């Protein structure tokens, strides 16, 4: 099992969700995050004082999948989130040792989906 973490532009969340559903990935967790990447920030001013905003709003997806779903999941995210512009985001993949469904106590591959 793998844990896929993806940072995407907030406005792409709906499209990414649709794309994941299309690949039969229905389960995921979402948090909002602030990101510092290649995308440069912008300037705000407040009462004359300059504010450099370099932490930009991002959405963080966390998706646990069985190994055979990894490629489909990554492809789905990329296809929906890519605009070709800086700031599109990044995907990280980690190993996941165990997964347990709280309701039933099921473990592993059965529990994940």
């Amino acid at each position: 099992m793998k844990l896929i973490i993806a940072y995407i532009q907030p406005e792409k969340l709906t499209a990414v969700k649709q794309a994941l559903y299309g690949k039969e990935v229905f389960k995921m967790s979402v948090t909002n995050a602030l990101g510092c990447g290649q995308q440069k920030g912008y300037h705000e001013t407040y009462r004359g004082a300059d504010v450099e905003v370099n932490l930009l709003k991002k959405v963080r997806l966390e998706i646990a999948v069985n190994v055979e779903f990894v490629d489909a999941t990554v492809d789905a995210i990329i296809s929906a989130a890519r605009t070709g512009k800086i700031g599109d985001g990044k995907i990280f993949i980690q190993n996941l040792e165990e997964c347990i469904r709280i309701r039933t106590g099921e473990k592993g591959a059965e529990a994940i989906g």
Partner: protein
Amino acid sequence: MKKWKKTLLLIAGALALGAGVYAEEVAPAVTAADAMFTANNIWMMISIFLVFIMHLGFATVETGLTRAKNTVNILFKNTAIVAIGLLTYALIGFNLMYPGDFSIAGIFGFGGFGIAAPEGAAGLIDYAGGAYSYWTDFLFQGMFAATAATIVSGAVAERIKLGSFLIFSTLYIALVYPFVGSWVWGGGWLAEMNFHAGSTLVHSVGGWAALAGILLLGPRLGKYVNGKAKAIMGHNMPLLTIGVFLLWLGWFGFNGGSVLSGDPGAVSYVLVTTCMAAAAGIIGSMITTWTVQKKPDLTMVLNGCLAGLVGITAGADVVTVGAAILIGFICGVVAVLSVLGFDKLKIDDPVGATTVHLVCGVLGTLFVGVFSPDFSFLTQLIGVLAYGAVCFPAAFLIFLALKKTIGIRVSEEEELKGLDIGEHGMEAYSGFQFFTNS
């Protein structure tokens, strides 16, 4: 506030009624007419305050019904409009709306730039038959002026360029509003026909411009997807509610002040019909939204309240209490259906301004011809059409000219990020966390 002079000054002041020269020895006796003048003028000043606070009501309603990322922009527009309205009204508007003599019979006249009171104490008392002072009159009318543009502000929110909106507002308030206003309030051709619209005039003038703006701007990104209307939720229901209550409060002055004197019977009757229509608007919209949408939608009920208030504005002084309740109820029902209807037509009005001010403004004006024997339905219809025929094209042309030149819509990127960052480089709720997925 020099209390040591008070006794003297006040006796003099109260009696001399603003005249420059105060008799210090023999104070002339106060007459009943003086006291009545003072009382009437106090009433009109109260109405000024009430109409003034409507601007805050509009600002908070519009803010509440839109997204957090466009809050600064909406507050900014509503603040600027008040200033623009008052200043242009002093410079041009007041004398365009009340030209005294018409250059083109009943249609156009202009009394000259600036404002200046008639001279001396006599001038004061003679003005408006001793009902209120020149300055009271100017300020009461001036407070209305900005309202028309405020109505537009909500309808075009979340996508219009700040600069273009300010230019539009200045032109529309300074020229179009007082020009068409003179037809009725200035004693023009519609007044001569016995057209009875009262202050709904403001609503329809604003409403037509709102419609023109929406059509030229197009809907907000993501509002209509695959032909279906998507919800773009307003971000602050308490602000919306504060706004609606403040507007209701303001309406006491909007309608009550339009009696143009503190006449106890007439004014209090108008207050009662106004409240009854607002209450019936709430009930009408509540029943409708509960039935149509399964669960009762607060924003619809608050729109229904405003719809009832707009609906009664034309006839507040000439319909019965029963008719007021009926008018309010109908407008409440219509408000809900109209919001749904505009969405079907893909006319994206984030705050329902066209529903409340245009649809219910027109309805209310026509209802005068239905519920009051003293006014003709036909005349009311002619009046309504006349306003549409001038205001809509005028607003459309101004917006179109702006669109062809400096543009009226912000970039897609700015719309996504929000106009607060785009137009103002700042945020409305610093430190709060948002989940921004649209």
